[in-house]
């Protein structure tokens, strides 16, 4: 009996050792050489942008340093991506939907110092805003934010708790109502009505677009301007409606200090982000429907970016930390509007 017990245990240990050895082996090999892999962890709608940017930057970096490096990207919901980085996904740079998510990474100790000031324009090389996408001919005659609360208008937006883009939607609607009706209470009533009209509350921006276009749900989609423009490019069945006022969305970029110091990739990471500000990088952003910061590039692509009144989160809500706490944290206004 004793011998059998021993054999049983030994087999079990062998099994586990096998798993771990199998795992450890291959990864050790990769890590001992000089880092050749570079990872940009980004949010959902930047897939096409960074696919193009990485291709371009591979050449630029080869030219500059003579080294071959593979630039990979990972996309997903902004919050989820930030969490993966906190949990150990080795991102050299993050390019996320909102400053709050980068703040969380900084708070976990991965990014040091005032990252917001490290690069120009609040570390946001390109911007976007929130617009409406409606069906061809605008059958429900939607012109501005207050048309969204009318009876019988089906609204599609992602859930602000799980999607970065949706938080911009929510805050834009809030600020519109506050300016129009006067105070925060009225604004809360307004967004409550608006979310009462929501037909499907997807967890991410891309899911919402699909619900609107592929499933034919709802009459109006609250979307990133760049997402709306991509959709329009592929299909003539929709129209963009520009509201009277919207929010200036500033997607943030940052170098992840802990990772670049470990991998020795600080130089390339900083070059990567600086290239986003370079006219060539700005042009790639503009081609992918992000509003470039560079004035000349913006002028060149002006026709695709309509004029509208934009406010910033700092002016209207006193920054992301405050906005997050008041509106989206547990018990915040978003929770309140759903509590009957």
């Amino acid at each position, binding site marked *: *009996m004793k011998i*059998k*017990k021993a*054999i*049983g*245990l030994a*087999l*079990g*240990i062998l*099994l*586990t050792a096998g*798993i771990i050895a199998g795992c450890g082996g291959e990864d050790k090999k990769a890590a001992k050489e000089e880092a050749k892999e570079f990872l940009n962890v980004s949010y959902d709608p930047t897939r096409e942008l960074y696919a193009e940017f990485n291709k371009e930057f591979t050449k630029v970096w080869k030219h500059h340093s003579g080294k071959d490096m593979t630039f990979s990207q990972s996309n997903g*919901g902004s*919050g*989820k991506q*930030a*969490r993966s980085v*906190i949990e150990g996904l080795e991102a050299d740079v993050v390019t996320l939907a909102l400053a709050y998510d980068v703040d*969380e990474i900084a708070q976990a100790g991965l990014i040091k110092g005032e990252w917001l000031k490290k690069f120009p324009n609040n570390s946001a090389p390109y911007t976007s805003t929130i617009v409406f996408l409606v069906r061809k001919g605008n059958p429900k005659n939607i012109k501005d934010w207050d048309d969204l609360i009318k009876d019988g208008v089906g609204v599609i937006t992602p*859930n602000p*708790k*799980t999607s970065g883009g949706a938080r911009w939607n929510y805050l834009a609607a809030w600020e519109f109502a506050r300016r129009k009706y006067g105070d925060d209470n009225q604004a809360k009533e307004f967004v409550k009505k608006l979310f009462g009209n*929501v*037909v*499907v*509350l*997807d*967890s991410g921006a891309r*899911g919402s677009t699909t619900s609107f276009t*592929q*499933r*034919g*749900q709802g009459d109006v989609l609250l979307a990133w301007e760049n997402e709306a423009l991509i959709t329009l490019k592929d299909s003539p069945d929709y129209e963009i409606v520009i509201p009277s006022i919207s929010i200036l969305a500033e997607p943030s970029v940052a170098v992840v200090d802990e990772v670049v110091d470990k991998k020795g990739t600080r130089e390339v990471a900083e070059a990567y982000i600086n290239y986003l500000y370079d006219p060539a990088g700005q042009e790639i952003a503009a081609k992918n429907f992000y509003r470039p910061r560079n004035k000349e590039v913006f002028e060149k692509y002006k026709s695709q970016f309509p004029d509208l009144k934009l406010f910033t989160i700092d002016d209207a809500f006193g920054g992301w930390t405050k906005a997050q706490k008041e509106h*989206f*944290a*547990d018990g915040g206004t978003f*929770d309140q509007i*759903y*509590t*009957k």
Partner: protein
Amino acid sequence: MRKVIPGFPFTLGLTMFYLSIILLLPLAAFVFFAGGMGWEKFVAKATEWRIVHGYIISFACALSAALINSVFGLILAWTLVRYDFPGKRVMDGLIDLPFALPTAVAGIALTTLYTENGWLGQFFYAIGVPTAFSAVGITIALIFVGIPFVTRSVQPVLKDLDRQTEEAAMLLGASKWLTFQKIIFPELVSPLLTGFALAFARGIGEYGSVVFIAGNKPFETEIAPLLIMTELEQFDYQAAAAVAIVMLSISFISLLAINGYQRYRIGRRGV
């Protein structure tokens, strides 16, 4: 007590070891991590009305789906084992497919089918049953992911069932139905319960397919796994863990109850 059949220490050792590595150690890490939150926060979070509503939706839909799967799973297993008909092999093979299809694909395909203008949805909407973006939709997704459990639990038992008792009963003049009720069904209770429990437990935790068809509206069609994701998106690991631990405990208790009941039945029948 002496074990007649050799191999007890070996199988016990191997089972416990594997279980520890794959299940218990990660589970312990998780509970340890969540443990930092303290009892009060745990209770406050776990009993928040929106979250409780999430459990209710998850459990109600998983229960209906598991019941429906039990009925149809039994019928399928029976037809596949006892009858010969053209296309039987194909039908048999199809049953496992829901597993191979990633839940997200299943969710997308089902949503397309069951929305108002989908191939099947149009009929349901016509009779006033909203099959997408409702609790019905969630149940449909859970039926899909649970199809194989009951059939595959019942099938092998039915196949290996001793036909002699059954034939004897028929010879003695019992009707087919009576034979089924008294001779066959009692043998199938154990696999049926197993299949039911598995389909139920799987349904409670299912996320990938459900999010597409649910609509995800708070207090209406928000399932508990989605709430876990929501908490995580806010970087609140402990709140997520609180919700997860409650769900896990309830599922574990239901599995324990069903397994315990089976032990009791076997003990009583003196197998």
